[in-house]
């Protein structure tokens, strides 16, 4: 009976808000242990009895504390300011993959990644220690593993992703249920038939030696410079593996490499008895998922796609006259991994601000029909530094249940986006919303609440021309009432009449003066 549950902090909607992860693993091991213990002693030892021993201890403690606090700045780890991943755990079925896929790993290392190779059933396997993740990315090159070693399981992998880390999953014909369930949880379903492979009798690679057309020269790539880089991948990508499809309910997954219309998924060694469940372009060979917290996931149906052998081999698609010396695999894998590890396509937006035209400082509330200006900063991570993001399709909504104003923002090409508009004639609690979802880029979702109030009682126009007959009528009534009383009084007493006249003149002067000052003479009007 849990009575008091502290509400979970809302998961940050964009990546640069995720808390900075730990410094590199090795230092952490030492630092945390030493630092924590010594720290404690230095603070909770008020009695200076063993002076000789406590002094160096305290020094040591200070030293460790200092190092610890400096470590996040010194190490090249993932942080909001440098969103590219640094430390990656690679889980393998066996260490031979390290050499057979070395081109891929070397390219990662050459880009500055710190790879940590482990067997998938290593009993000491763990992604986090003391609640802090040790890695920024995870590569699962262990299709056949039935159970991870150590503290790792499907839930841990998914938690890793849900806390904003990246994941590459490569499956194979030997793909275990474990790997498939990881994919399923990411919104991608592998073919349920364990012996099925992707077969393409038209798009196979000519070098397919088995003759069952399972080695496919795929060239149905996603058209996105952000994911695949600016250089076009000319050569087809060699693929041999299993098919998967995107879950219809999943709006976050993308097919990066999809099957040709003639592809289908079936057991190549058995006779096809019933129509295959996955056919044509419904088949995805390689997909990526960008989660709502902008963690990126890549799911490949083929582990060989990453192998040195495929990368080096020449490729010719069946029925195609052009033969390439080198397959597109290396370029494809490198470019996708660049996107995946946030070297590209990572945006950050912030500093959302607005102000009333002609004023400085953000108001707490607007009035209807106010003119306002809106600003937001958007930057893109180039891999080394933050560059201004330039686009002409960023929009802001002034939103209350539905957008009342939708404006495209103009940019000064230095990262600042700006627009101005008039608050609609509707009061309520509005939001400035920037919802920017562009293929390949991190999705930006910013909002800021701002109430809009109606006019105050003294903000209406006091005198309107159409009402002049009414003003005339009231003033005439007042005048004639005076006149009436004047004559009524003059009949009885002359002095009273004089008083009346004096009062009348005084009132007229008073009203006239007030008009000059600008104050309305009648609050009732």
């Amino acid at each position, binding site marked *: 009976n*849990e*009575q008091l549950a502290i509400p979970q902090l809302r998961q940050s909607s964009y990546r640069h808000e995720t808390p900075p992860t730990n410094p590199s693993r090795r230092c952490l091991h030492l630092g945390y242990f030493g630092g924590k213990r010594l720290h404690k002693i230095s603070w909770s030892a008020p009695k200076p009895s063993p002076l000789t021993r406590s002094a160096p201890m305290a020094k040591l403690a200070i030293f460790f504390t200092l190092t610890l606090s400096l470590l996040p700045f010194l190490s090249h780890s993932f942080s909001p300011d440098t969103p590219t991943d640094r430390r990656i755990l690679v889980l393998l079925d066996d260490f031979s993959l390290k050499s057979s896929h070395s081109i891929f790993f070397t390219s990662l290392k050459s880009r500055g990644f710190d790879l940590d190779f482990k067997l998938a059933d290593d009993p000491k396997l763990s992604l986090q220690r003391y609640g802090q993740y040790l890695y920024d990315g995870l590569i699962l090159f262990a299709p056949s593993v039935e159970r991870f070693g150590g503290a790792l399981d499907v839930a841990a992998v998914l938690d890793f992703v849900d806390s904003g880390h990246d994941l590459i999953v490569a499956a194979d014909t030997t793909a275990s249920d474990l790997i498939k369930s990881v994919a399923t949880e990411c919104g991608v379903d592998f073919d349920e038939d364990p012996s099925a492979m992707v077969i393409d009798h038209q798009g196979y690679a000519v070098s397919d030696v088995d003759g069952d057309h399972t080695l496919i020269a795929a060239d149905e790539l996603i058209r996105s410079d952000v994911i695949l880089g600016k250089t076009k991948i000319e050569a087809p990508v060699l693929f041999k593996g299993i098919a998967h499809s995107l879950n219809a309910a999943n709006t976050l997954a993308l097919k990066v490499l999809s099957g040709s219309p003639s592809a289908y998924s079936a057991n190549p060694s058995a006779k096809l008895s019933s129509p295959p469940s996955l056919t044509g372009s419904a088949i995805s060979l390689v997909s990526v998922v960008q989660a709502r917290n902008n963690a990126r*996931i890549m799911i490949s149906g083929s582990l060989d796609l990453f192998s040195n052998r495929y990368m080096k081999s020449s490729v010719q698609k069946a029925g195609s006259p052009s033969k390439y010396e080198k397959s597109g695999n290396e370029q494809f894998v490198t470019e996708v991994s660049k996107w995946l590890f946030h070297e590209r396509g990572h945006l950050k937006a912030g500093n959302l601000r607005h102000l009333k035209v002609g004023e400085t400082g953000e108001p707490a*509330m607007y009035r209807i029909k106010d003119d306002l200006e809106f600003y937001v900063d958007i930057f893109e991570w180039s891999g080394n530094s933050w560059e201004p993001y330039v686009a002409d399709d960023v929009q802001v909504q002034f939103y209350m249940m539905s957008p009342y104003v939708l404006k495209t923002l103009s940019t000064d090409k230095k990262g600042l986006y700006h627009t101005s508009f008039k608050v609609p004639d509707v*009061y309520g*609690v509005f939001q400035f919303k920037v919802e920017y979802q562009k293929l390949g880029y991190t999705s930006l979702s910013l909002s800021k*609440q701002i109430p809009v*109030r*109606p006019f105050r009682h003294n903000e209406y126009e006091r005198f309107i021309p159409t009402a002049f007959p009414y003003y005339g009528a009231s003033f005439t009534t007042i005048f004639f009432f005076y006149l009436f009383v004047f004559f009524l009084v003059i009949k009885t007493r002359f002095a009273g009449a004089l008083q009346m006249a004096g009062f009348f003149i005084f009132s007229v002067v008073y009203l006239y003066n007030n008009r000059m000052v600008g104050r309305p003479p009648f609050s009732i009007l």
Partner: protein
Amino acid sequence: MPPQTMSAKTDATIGVNGTAKSTSNQAPPPMALPANLKSDLLNKLSLKSFKLKTKQQELLLRVSILFLVYVLAFITRLFSVLRYESMIHEFDPYFNYRTTLFLTEKGFYEFWNWFDYESWYPLGRIVGGTLYPGLMVTAALIYWGLRFLRFAVHIREVCVLTAPFFASNTTLVAYFFGKEIWDSSAGLVAAALIAICPGYISRSVAGSYDNEGVAIFALLLTFYLFVKAVNTGSLTWSLASAFGYFYMVSAWGGYVFIINLIPLYVLVLLITGRYSVRLYIAYNCMYVLGMLLAMQIRFVGFQHVQSGEHMAAMGVFFLMQVFYFLDWVKYLLSDKRLFETFLRITVTTTVGLAAVALGVGTASGYISPWTGRFYSLLDPTYAKDHIPIIASVSEHQPTAWSSFMFDFHILLFLFPAGLYFCFKRLTDATIFIVMYGLTSMYFAGVMVRLILVATPAVCLISAIAVSATVKNLAQLLRTKSKVTQGGSSKAASGSKASSKALLDQSQPFQRNGAIALLLGVFYLLSKYATHCTWVTSEAYSSPSIVLAARGAHGNKVIFDDYREAYFWLQQNTPTDAKVMSWWDYGYQITAMANRTVIVDNNTWNNTHIATVGRAMSSYEDEAYEIMRELDVGYVLVVFGGVTGYSSDDINKFLWMVRIGGGVFPVIKEPDYLVNGEYRVDKGAAPKMLNCLMYKLCYYRFGELMTEYGKPPGFDRARGVEIGNKDIKLEHLEEAFTTSNWIVRIYKVKPPNNRW
């Protein structure tokens, strides 16, 4: 039973006797009556020691009685403070308290222009323009006055005690009103009766900081001043009544009753041939000035000349002018036949013109039709069929017979007797009180909360009955003494003397009967006092935000779950979090937890409420879509299954379905019923067992043993074992449940990270 009520009652009886005595004192001194030894002693004392004249004695008695009644009315309403604490009660008072706080902190102009974005998210509410500011301004003025006099009070104390204070003032008005329509003794009785009448106490105990607390005072004051104006024909009184009306309009929407009753009264006077210049002056001045003043209240504004509810007053106003005009023409035309022809033509054209104007006005939309609330007053079944949101409010239910008895006790029998006396002595004033009594009794029968409006009329009319009866009986006793003292003088006084002669024949029997009847009256009145005190202390002093129950050993158990939950919300949620709950708890959440709510007790937007009703009665994933649209962060439900608290959300749920279904036809009431029966056990409808409200209320309830000898998941409020014990929540998670499970708060999860 507390002693103060008893003592007050004796005071009232002294009052009656005292006045009887003072009138008899003008005659040759009578023999001391054994029943009034005490008052006699008092008289002698004052005679001997202060040497006061009879008139002065009477005045002293009257003032001291009034003073005691004044104090009594205040202290009998303090039960709630003694039993619980000095706190604001129920639902609406929390809104009033919040606005008063705002008024005292930010000043009047900020209050007037207040746009509240913490309620009715995301629509917001223009608070300054949608409330009756009378109560808040009154409390703020009292507060500022006290601060000025260097009394460092908290605004909450002022708010808590505003209603009792005004109840005390009402007793004074009742006295003057009674004096105006009958005599001062009737006024004293009326003051005493209304001071402790449960029908009034129900809305004016300490802490019940609601519009009605002030409005009943304003209502009675307006009526009194108007009757005074009609009686005197004085512009001053009429002006005063217009200001009384202005105060009433500023305080409560019930002012519509005044603006319809007074024209009706005037119309009746016109029809019965009681037209007079006094009436003309009183009504015209009151209506014109009252209207102009009422239009200054933002919430009323031009409604006062445009809406259907106010048209009767305007019609009568024009009719008065026609009457005046006809009078003048009659005065000019000596020929009677000529006048009759003229009359016929005038009346026909006037009625025709008025009908055309009304028709055109209604058709063009210039005159708005009657509102649903007004319709439901005239036709009690209207709301039930057409407007579930009005029918769902407990205080809008038709009144049960028992609650008349509960709220009026002996006044219910005295009321017809008083009417009889009024009819016996028909004047302009008694006609008014009769009409007030009859119409308000009808309305009290239609809506339970309108008992409140009827209470002053019932008290006044009953006071007439009591006072007249006691006076008559006392007169009988006195006649006997007269007979013994001066038997020769009786023949002098015409027809009355002959009846007295008749009385004299059965003298001993009459005398004993009179004494018996007097004793009976005193017995009834003391019973009334007992009843009122009991009702006040037992039924009407509960704040309903803190619940009290008797434990197994007869000890008092306090359930303070509401405040626990609101405090949790205030401490543990982001300041801009939006809380979705049924509208009943909206005011309390904004006032106590200081969080934004989707809907609250100001039920101005039916669609918005229906959206919440729809979310509560949908399946979880459908509800999640709605909640995402409304940016809901937390959902709050009230659940009484553990404590047996029966006015919880499950029991209110059918109204959510009805209100939701009224706007969104996808919600159908039969889906939640089994053979027309509402149940939550195994036999419940499948949609019922899986809708959001059911899930939120009964989440993890299946594991709980609530009562010895019953299976786990036994709902004590409904006395059944629940039908769905294995409840899984997908998009929500339990955030907080109070110690007695009365309030449960759930957090709405963000959308799934991966897909």
